[in-house]
């Protein structure tokens, strides 16, 4: 990751430098037909003293006049072998602060008010002046440039190129303009975007700490402040006529520059974790001093028109920043993280660029150079964006981890639930099986078991007829069949129960010569009859019919089922000899009670009715 970032940054730098070199090369090759004006005469007026003398361009006003404002008039002669056929133009990479351009005595262009000092500043962008036709003549021509110079505002005149519009305007001027003007616009836009993002992060990324205090992340705030300061500072490059007088504006711009440097340092201060170390709190003071010192020194330099104040202070500032960045770099090497490495590289590059700018802009006589720091500041923006991306990535990875952990917990809980459910189900199954077993046991006991044991008793007594024994055994088998039928009987379906009973018992009745009458209507299901009660009802009816078979000496057995309103009524009727209805067999009344039926028995010779009512 880190290696990739480093290679990305170095690539960016290479493109940047390559672009600068390319521009220089282009200027060299096309200098054949255009003429570069380097020499001439200059007349300067500083504090009422006027001097005239030869001059070699570039002319760096502040170096020549120790920062004092004044006026200058340049006369730059050049010779043409013939009157040009094509349109010509004049390209001035840097001239300021307010300018008048004349060619052979004709005023071509005015930039700013020459009489009002500390107003507009046209030294920020390159200038191109088209030459009207026929103004150029064969032989000697004179380009005159009059300018008003303000203190510490990079006033002066660079070398001037005169030549055909095609190479001069399209190649020299436009590429210089792109680098100075368009570059400033893009850098401003970039800084505003990054600053906006950082500010939004600072406002939204609130860490609700354990203490209950809302903590915002300092690095976002300082990154935002740095980017906004820088945006203002870089925007100055495209503002020819500032809204404030020069001194105030100059102090503000210097403050922005210092604010950017200080904010970047505070960014490092938070990123390195120094902010959490009480013993390193003092590190904020030199940072504050950078801003305060810059404001004071700039005010002094501009007010007194003595740029050396600022130059000197900037040297001190560079030392402070260098110390700070050096410490940060050391701390980073000791305790490296990708974020710190990125920022340390950006900071070191920026400091290197800052030193270079100080040497070139504040000390050397080179005129026309621009600062490099304006580009290196992009490193900070990129570093911040990468930091944010990395943090976001880390957080989203963590969140995915949490989601996975949560899903795992839910799955675990589901497994536990499923297991609990399975256990409960097992318990329920066991219970059902136990009930079923009890039912079967009771069934065997009441049905087959009792019949077989009575058959055994009959055999043992030796007094029974084989007919009686056969009947007992048949009863036993019939009970078994009824028991099997009852397994499939739908609970409450009395009709099905009666049909099965008839099917099982009719052969016995037929054998006994009893005619069967079937008067069974379709009846509603009886809700209170569960499987167990159905079996009891079977026993009850079997008992009643068995009694008819054995004792009644009947010739007709009639089974009736019908509905009386909501009540289901079952009747077993025979035409036998009858019995004492007050002596209802106990088995009958007990079973009727068990199934919740109302039992009514009436009997007289020729008609016995056993009636059951449900509902």
């Amino acid at each position: 990751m880190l290696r990739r970032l480093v290679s990305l940054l170095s690539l960016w730098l290479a493109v940047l430098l390559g672009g600068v070199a390319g521009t220089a090369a282009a200027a060299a090759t096309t200098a054949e037909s255009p003429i570069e004006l380097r020499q001439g005469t200059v007349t300067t007026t500083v504090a009422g003293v006027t001097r005239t003398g030869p001059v070699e361009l570039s002319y760096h006003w502040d170096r020549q006049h120790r920062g004092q404002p004044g006026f200058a008039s340049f006369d730059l002669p050049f010779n043409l072998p013939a009157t040009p056929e094509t349109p010509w133009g004049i390209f001035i990479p840097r001239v300021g602060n307010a300018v008048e351009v004349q060619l052979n005595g004709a005023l071509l262009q005015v930039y700013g008010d020459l009489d009002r000092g500390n107003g507009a500043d046209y030294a920020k962008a390159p200038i191109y002046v088209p030459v009207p036709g026929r103004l150029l003549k064969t032989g000697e021509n004179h380009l005159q440039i009059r300018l008003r110079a303000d203190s510490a505002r990079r006033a002066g005149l660079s070398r001037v190129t005169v030549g055909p519009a095609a190479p001069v305007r399209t190649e020299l001027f436009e590429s210089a303009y792109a680098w100075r003007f368009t570059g400033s616009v893009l850098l401003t836009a970039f800084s505003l975007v990054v600053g906006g993002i950082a500010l939004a992060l600072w406002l939204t990324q609130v860490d609700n700490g354990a203490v209950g205090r809302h903590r915002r992340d300092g690095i976002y705030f300082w990154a935002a402040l740095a980017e906004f300061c820088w945006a203002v500072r870089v925007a100055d490059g495209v503002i020819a006529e500032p809204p404030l007088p020069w001194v105030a504006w100059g102090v503000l711009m210097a403050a922005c520059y210092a604010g950017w440097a200080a904010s970047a340092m505070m960014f490092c201060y938070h990123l390195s974790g120094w902010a959490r170390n009480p013993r390193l709190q003092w590190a904020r003071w030199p940072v504050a001093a950078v801003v305060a010192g810059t404001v004071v020194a700039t005010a002094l330099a501009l007010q007194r028109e003595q740029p050396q104040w600022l130059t000197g202070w900037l040297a001190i500032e560079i030392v402070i920043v260098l110390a700070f960045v050096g410490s940060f770099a050391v701390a980073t090497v000791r305790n490296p993280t990708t974020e710190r490495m990125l920022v340390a590289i950006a900071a070191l590059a920026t400091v290197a660029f800052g030193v270079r700018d100080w040497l070139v802009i504040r000390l050397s006589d080179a005129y026309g150079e621009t600062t490099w720091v304006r580009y290196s500041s992009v490193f900070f923006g990129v570093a911040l964006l990468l930091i944010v991306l990395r943090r976001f990535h880390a957080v989203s990875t963590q969140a995915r981890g949490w989601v996975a952990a949560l899903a795992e917990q839910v799955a675990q809980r589901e497994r536990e639930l499923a297991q609990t459910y399975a256990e409960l189900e097992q318990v329920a199954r066991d219970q059902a099986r136990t009930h079923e077993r009890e039912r079967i046991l009771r069934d065997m006991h009441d049905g087959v078991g009792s019949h077989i044991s009575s058959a055994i008793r009959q055999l043992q007594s030796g007094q029974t007829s084989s007919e009686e024994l056969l009947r007992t055994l048949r009863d036993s088998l019939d009970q078994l069949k009824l028991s099997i039928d009852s397994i499939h009987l739908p609970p409450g379906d009395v009709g099905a129960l009666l049909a099965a009973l008839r099917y099982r018992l009719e052969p016995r009745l037929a054998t006994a010569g009893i005619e069967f009458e079937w008067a069974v209507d379709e009846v509603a299901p009886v809700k209170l009859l569960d499987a167990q009660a159905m079996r009891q009802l079977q026993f009850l009816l079997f008992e009643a019919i068995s009694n008819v078979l054995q004792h009644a000496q009947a010739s007709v057995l009639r089974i009736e089922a019908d509905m009386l309103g909501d009540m289901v009524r079952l009747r077993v009727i025979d035409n036998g000899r009858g019995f004492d209805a007050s002596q209802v067999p106990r088995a009958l009344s007990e079973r009727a009670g068990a199934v919740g039926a109302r039992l009514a028995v009436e009997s007289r010779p020729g008609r016995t009715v056993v009636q059951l009512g449900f509902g």
Partner: protein
Amino acid sequence: MPRRWGVLVVEDDSRARAFFEASVQRSPRLFWLGSAGTVLEALAWLARTTTIPDVLLVDLGMPDGTGLDVIRDAVARFPGCEPLVVSVFGDEENVLASIEAGAVGYIHKDAAPEDIAQTIVEMKAGASPISPMIARRVLAKYRSLQSANVLGIGIGTGTAVPGATPEAAFDENERGLLSAREHEVLTLIARGFSYAEIARLKGLSVHTVQTHIKNLYGKLAVHSKSEAVFEATRLGLLPHPG
């Protein structure tokens, strides 16, 4: 002299075999072909016999398998052969499975010897016993089949609403399973009415009622076959027809 029917018995209990043999020998309408004590023996007998058995008495629980295999084999070899299942209880599961394998009825093991012979002869004359419990099961099964058909085909207003007229619910052309009359008869059997009572109630002869039941047996067997084919096709065991 009416025709006499040849009977083969497949039964592992030797005393039961002897009992069946005695019952058959005693009947002037039946003659004894032989008996088998295991499924293998029975299958071997069927493979080499020169006399086509008219009636097959099969016990389901055999020591080396199930009597259902014998029923299937016999029906496949001799379409005229009518298997009867010997059942102690006449319980629904076994009887339905036998019918679907091709049996045309069942006899109770505890029936009297003369009853056994009579049941066989009546069966050959067109009778088919069916218990109310089995009738109920068959009805329930065809109710669910019918609602599945209605859902699957998406035609017909006939839903299995209890109390809807049988004609509407069971249109034979539409379903080819139960005719309206068969359904009516089956419903009455399930409610416990005897064949004679049903004949009287519906103004039919007892013979007609028996024919309906016998047809039903055939349909159950055929249906169980087509059901098997359908299942096999669905599972990809057989190529799809067409």
